[in-house]
């Protein structure tokens, strides 16, 4: 079975299996055709397969007449920021985010520095399926250009957005685990720009992931182990392209990735009041936080594209997901973990509170996330079957199956990246959350067989 996922803003698969030079070239050529030979920024995370996809993507973009502004190893949010700064036609980020080393992906960015919206994504896909790529003659071929000092430009921007003076004065000691991903070379520039003391972990951009590049408690052992020893104020875990982050408190508690978004929102919505966007799988914590600040909440399907485009459409101020991706509209409409970390540090500095105290202010829910492997040919029908299980309930079908009541909810959806069915359940009471999930899991296991 080949694992290949074509989403609205890109294509993801296993290298050497579904991700081949031909597939990468065809998708990059389709994207180059769509941007009409305008310059395209290209960056990648540190995966071993990065140079392969990079070379294939470059060749195809150049062949459609796009100049390539090559950022080399670059976190996706920085690439997104630079797309607008350099007035490029778009961007292509080569990263599989939180997926393990087998995977890689192309993620396409539009000229506004946002992941493609569903309509733009459909255009690229149509061109890809049609196979009619723009081909230019020798004189019109694109050229490869390096972009100098772009990290400085990005962190100058971030510095101006945040209250760097306050952060500096607080003399914070911060542990960051970059998982040897694209964030690794940018930790020091960030610490310099914002004036905190950095204790970097796994900060070699060599693509050897010491643990899954997914920011969540089970991957936090190293950070937890050193945070108390060095007396740091906070710890952060990043995914491979710095679009997701989770936090570890000064007491060594690894917070669920669900905390990141409400941690930011708690203060951010005080400063910028407006609608908040999240997806249907995210914890109710954010509902309580938004309600407390009189901000309406909009729920979308899972995925950065849906979140940031709802951000734009609803004129919202903040978007985020329970997976640890947060977009601060006042900075840029992208899941940006540098901005997220910076904002959390600023909150700690200005309010003079520890991270454990800030987390303690949030309502506690218990969330259970499970996944069941399922052949891609069957995932959708199996999810659809679940409707029978909930025949007595009101079902929200915006993204999979979601059923909600006063004390909690459960959602069943197909994974956007893997041949899996995801089950997420939440409740104020831990055992109830577990029960909500287990009931559905039992039903699904029966229907798969």
């Amino acid at each position, binding site marked *: 079975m080949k694992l290949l996922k074509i989403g609205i803003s890109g294509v993801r698969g296993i290298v050497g299996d579904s991700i081949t030079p031909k597939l990468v070239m065809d998708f990059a050529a389709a994207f180059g055709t769509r941007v009409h030979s305008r310059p395209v920024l290209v960056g990648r995370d540190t995966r071993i397969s990065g140079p392969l996809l990079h070379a294939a993507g470059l*060749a195809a973009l150049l062949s459609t007449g796009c100049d390539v502004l090559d950022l080399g190893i670059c976190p996706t949010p920085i690439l997104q920021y630079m797309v607008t700064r350099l007035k490029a036609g778009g961007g292509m980020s080569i990263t599989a985010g939180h997926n393990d080393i087998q995977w890689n992906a192309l993620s396409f960015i539009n000229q506004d520095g946002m992941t493609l919206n569903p309509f733009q994504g459909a255009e690229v896909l149509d061109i890809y399926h049609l196979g009619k790529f723009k081909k230019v003659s020798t004189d019109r071929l694109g050229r490869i250009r390096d972009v100098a000092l772009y990290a400085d430009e990005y962190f100058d921007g971030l510095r101006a957005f945040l209250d760097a003076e306050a952060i500096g004065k607080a003399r914070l000691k911060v542990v960051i685990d970059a998982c040897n991903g694209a964030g690794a070379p940018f930790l020091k520039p960030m610490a310099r720009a914002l004036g905190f003391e950095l204790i970097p972990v796994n900060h070699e951009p060599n693509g050897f992931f010491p643990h899954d590049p997914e920011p969540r408690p089970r991957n936090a052992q190293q950070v937890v182990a050193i945070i108390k020893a060095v007396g740091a104020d906070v710890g952060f875990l990043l995914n491979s392209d710095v679009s997701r982050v989770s936090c570890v408190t000064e007491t060594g508690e690894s917070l669920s990735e669900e905390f990141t978004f409400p941690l930011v929102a708690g203060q951010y919505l005080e400063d910028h009041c407006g609608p908040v966007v999240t997806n249907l799988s995210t914890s109710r914590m954010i509902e309580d936080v938004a309600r407390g600040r009189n901000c309406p909440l909009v729920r979308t399907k899972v995925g950065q594209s849906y979140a940031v485009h709802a951000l734009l459409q609803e004129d919202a101020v903040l978007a985020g997901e329970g997976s640890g991706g947060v977009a601060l509209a006042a900075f840029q409409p992208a899941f940006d973990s540098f901005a997220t970390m910076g904002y959390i540090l600023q909150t700690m500095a200005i309010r003079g509170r520890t991270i454990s105290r800030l987390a303690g202010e949030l309502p506690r829910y218990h969330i259970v996330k499970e996944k069941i492997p399922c052949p891609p040919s069957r995932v959708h029908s199996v999810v659809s079957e679940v409707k029978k299980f909930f025949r007595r309930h009101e079902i929200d079908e915006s993204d999979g199956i979601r059923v909600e009541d006063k004390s909690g909810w459960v959602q069943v959806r197909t994974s956007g990246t893997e041949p899996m069915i995801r089950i997420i359940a939440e409740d104020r009471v831990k055992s109830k959350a577990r029960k909500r999930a287990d009931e559905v899991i039992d039903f699904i296991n029966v229907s798969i067989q």
Partner: protein
Amino acid sequence: MKKISSLKISISGVRGIIGDSLTPQLAGALSQAFGTYVGGGPVIVGRDARPSGPMLLQAVIAGLLSSGCQPIDVGICPIPSFLFLAKEAKSSGGISVTASHNPKEWNGLKFISRDGLYLTPHQMEEFLDIYHQGDFTYAPPDRLKALRAESQPVEPHLKKLLGYFNADLIRRRKFKVALDCGNGAGAILAPRFLQELGCETVVINAVPDGSFAHGGRGPGLYPGVHFRRTRPLIQATGEWRAEGSSLDQSEPLPENIKEICRTVVKSRADVGFVQDADADRLAIVNDKGRPLGEELTLALAAQYMLGKKKGSVVCNLSTTRAIDDIAAARKAPVFRTKIGEINVVEKVLTAEPAAVIAGEGNGGVILPGVHPCRDSFAGMGLILEYLAASGRTISALQKRVPRYVMIKDKIEGSAEQGYRLVGLLKKRYEGEGRISLLDGLKIDFPDHWIHVRPSNTEPIIRVISEARTESAAKAAIRRLKKEIEELKNQI
């Protein structure tokens, strides 16, 4: 007449037109097939100075990486240095992104074996089978290799050259050399090589951004890219003198040779050298500022090498008869091969007695003692050593080469028509001379020869003659073309 296809996938490599037939997808698939064929390991990759080179090179790198090979990127590199490196670095092979003398909208891929030689026709067949079958190796992520850049790709070649020639002898003469690199890859090594040989060198057209490069995207956007009008002297088929050419200097000179000739005169150089774009061929300008003609490069090299070492000469059917005369005077055998560098090289590898010198009349000198490939640097070294050892001027040495006049002409016609024409002409000339059907039709007469050969790359049939005088050569061509005219309705 049938139009020539814009894509040629053949046993001599792949060539196509950018923006049309030669896509990154195709280059990537071919490279992945090559990586599958060589079975992994390091593969040297490089390119000539064409503007489409960077694009195709990326596709080649992607294809090789995907097959589990480790591409070693040498960037723009002279072909002989590239080939030598492929052998010395114990690589699995190499891919060169080049279309040698084709116009700039073309580009192509040349495939190189672990021995640092172009794939032989048999090897190409095997490799192309894999490409056509489409059964490629896809390395899983944990088997992928890292791309490596080689910043000093010419070093092993330079070291070999300096060790091969009598550098002290050459250095003592303190030659003054005028050098035209044609803005090709040769500029990376040639000035340094000559400097190491103690020559005072005046270099022109030494920016290896290629005579092809141009900056049509507005000023300032791409610094360092300039439009260069100087083109290489040597064109593989001698198009610029399709009317006929000769070993002496009676023909008018094209603009781009005048520059090096003037430079030789102005700087009072002992000799002028001209390299083609990928630095495998060499033309010579004498101390009087007159170009020698391409055929003389190999003739002079053979004259020197055969005087120094015992052995044979290998060259193709269309190379000047002066080679036979030079070899006969030293009782050295001459082996003639089909046209195409690889055919000459294959014979060099098996010739008995061993070849001491080989090459083609287009300025491609092969010095087997260095590496069995066309090598303009080896050619320069030989000429300089010849000058130093003989103590004579290049114009004096030139006079010792038997004088012949060669006329290269062509007529329109497909390969198929050329094939039939060869059969008919053979009957016409039956019994008149020594006939060879090795490559087209070549007939040796006591005082001249003629050669008729369909082109591999264009819909033309090449007709060539050579004789002691221009009038005799022209007469031979006139007769040949008249015969062809009479046979026209039969082909």
